[in-house]
């Protein structure tokens, strides 16, 4: 009786100690933020962990705003964002003793997509703005069929929406009757289903079931986004607290390496070089 108890006790001690040693031996890195940067961070983290088995990287989405909030709270090592910091966020960070440093990790183009049955090929930025603010409501005004335009937009706190609002809407409001969808995938789903729909999404989400229109005569491709010709493009960032050191620096260098950029391209983004 006593013997077996002793044995169990010993076993528990052994298990706990090996487990804690395992945990201590690992180097941890946490990454949080934009769902647009998520696929790059996820893929890069997998490749990095394969090479460095003692490193444990946890990658979470949640949106640019949440990533920055976590960085400000000191809850994450790297914040992924699909936009630059807002003034409010910078002052909140500084007040908390955090100095966010941006690292551009890739480029992302926002393509404007329509249903594949729609004959329209080319839209100017002004026309897209007129559609999204509700001034143009029928495709026949744009040389298409006599069909009501179904405006599809992203939830107003997403990074994609913020960039679209800044680059296309120029501070005007999206028409209230726009369909709000909570992800790039949901936008793709609605636009491929509704014949009169128009939506916008990251270049990585383009698929044969959607038709990407030319904007100001420029087709959205990796080359036109990287060269700056395509008008609705944005850089993607990873923010760190101060200049990165140790593991954080090593990981960011990995993403900026030829191999890392190749991974980003494989995920449907536009590499920096």
């Amino acid at each position, binding site marked *: 009786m006593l013997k077996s108890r002793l044995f169990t006790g010993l076993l528990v001690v052994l298990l706990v100690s090996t487990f804690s040693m395992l945990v201590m031996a690992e180097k941890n890195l946490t990454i949080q933020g934009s769902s647009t940067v998520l696929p790059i961070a996820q893929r890069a983290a997998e490749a990095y962990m394969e090479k460095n088995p003692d490193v444990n990287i946890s990658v979470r989405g*949640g*949106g*640019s*705003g*949440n990533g*920055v*909030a976590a960085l400000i709270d000191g809850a994450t090592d790297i914040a992924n964002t699909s936009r630059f910091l807002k003034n409010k*966020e910078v002052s909140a960070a500084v007040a908390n003793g955090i100095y966010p440093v941006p690292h551009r990790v890739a480029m992302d183009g926002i393509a404007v997509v329509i249903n594949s049955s729609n004959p329209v090929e080319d839209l100017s930025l002004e026309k897209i703005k007129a559609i999204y603010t509700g001034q143009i409501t029928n495709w026949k005004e744009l040389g298409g069929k006599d*069909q*009501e*335009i*179904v405006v599809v937009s992203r*939830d*107003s*706190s*997403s*990074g994609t*929406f*913020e960039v679209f609002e800044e680059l296309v809407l120029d*501070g005007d*409001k999206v028409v*209230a*009757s*726009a*369909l*709000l*969808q*909570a992800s790039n995938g*949901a936008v793709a*789903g*609605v636009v491929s*289903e*509704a*014949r*009169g*729909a128009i939506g916008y999404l990251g270049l990585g989400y383009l698929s044969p079931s959607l038709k990407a229109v030319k904007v100001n005569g420029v087709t959205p491709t990796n080359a036109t986004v990287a060269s700056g010709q395509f008008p609705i493009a944005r850089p993607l960032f990873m923010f760190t607290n101060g200049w990165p050191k140790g593991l954080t620096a090593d990981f960011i260098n990995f993403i900026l390496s030829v191999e890392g950029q190749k991974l980003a391209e494989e995920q449907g983004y536009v590499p920096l070089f």
Partner: protein
Amino acid sequence: MIDWKKKEKIVKTILFIFALSSIIFLTGIVIVLFNEGFPIFSKVGLFQFVFGQDWYPTHEPPDFGILPLLLASILVTVGAMVIAVPIGISSAIFISYILPQKIKDIVKPMIEMLAGVPSVIYGLFGMRILGPFLQDLFDLPTGLTALTAAIMLGIMALPTVVSLAEDAISAVPKKFRDASLALGGTRWETISKVILPTATSGMVTAVILGIGRAIGETMTVLMVAGGAAVIPRSILRPLRPMTANIAAEMGEAPVGSDHYHALFGIAIILFVITLFFNIMADLASNRFKKKVSGK
């Protein structure tokens, strides 16, 4: 050896703690909800918040008016009840009075299983099958409309309505039925003049809980209602119920911002509405219990 009295006491304490925990959780939720949501009421005013017609939470300057969202929730819930109540009540009557006991024992659990289907599956069905079908049927610009959401919510509320209404009908004492039949009433007369009037308040409970299920449902309406924050003008137009709005925007709303507080503000309104319906359901079920016990 512990004597049985002590044992009893220990068991009693443990059960008491467990019973208390749900009250603690509820209180905690209410406190958090009001704590996080109240700042928006003091900022824009409760009246402006509930009856404001524009929802532009991230625009500069922002608009926090939830009337379009509130009306959308009400519209899809009413629509769902128009579908679920007649089908649900008649199914309940059919199951409890017309089906033989053996088949009833199979059918009722099957209907209750409908309640166990995850809401995202209803959402997928509505999005990929019902939506495109309605789009073609009515030649709509998009199939994601109030009607699509109402039909899906109606189907989802059905098991609640059927199951509780059937319970209510079964709870009518057998002697009521026997008396009616003995007096020469036909089966239909017995159902329509004796059973249903007795079971009314029980069925009201069923309907109210069905309403609660429909108004609080989130994933399905997020997927099938379309998401347009406009005051609904037609059931064939997209709209955005309150729950869908919270789910879509909470993920990326910065903690502590006005937008964040506004989403909690919507949650408070939603909570108050469901609380009201739950209290109503409780009152109705108490009345029903009194009625069937014959007091």
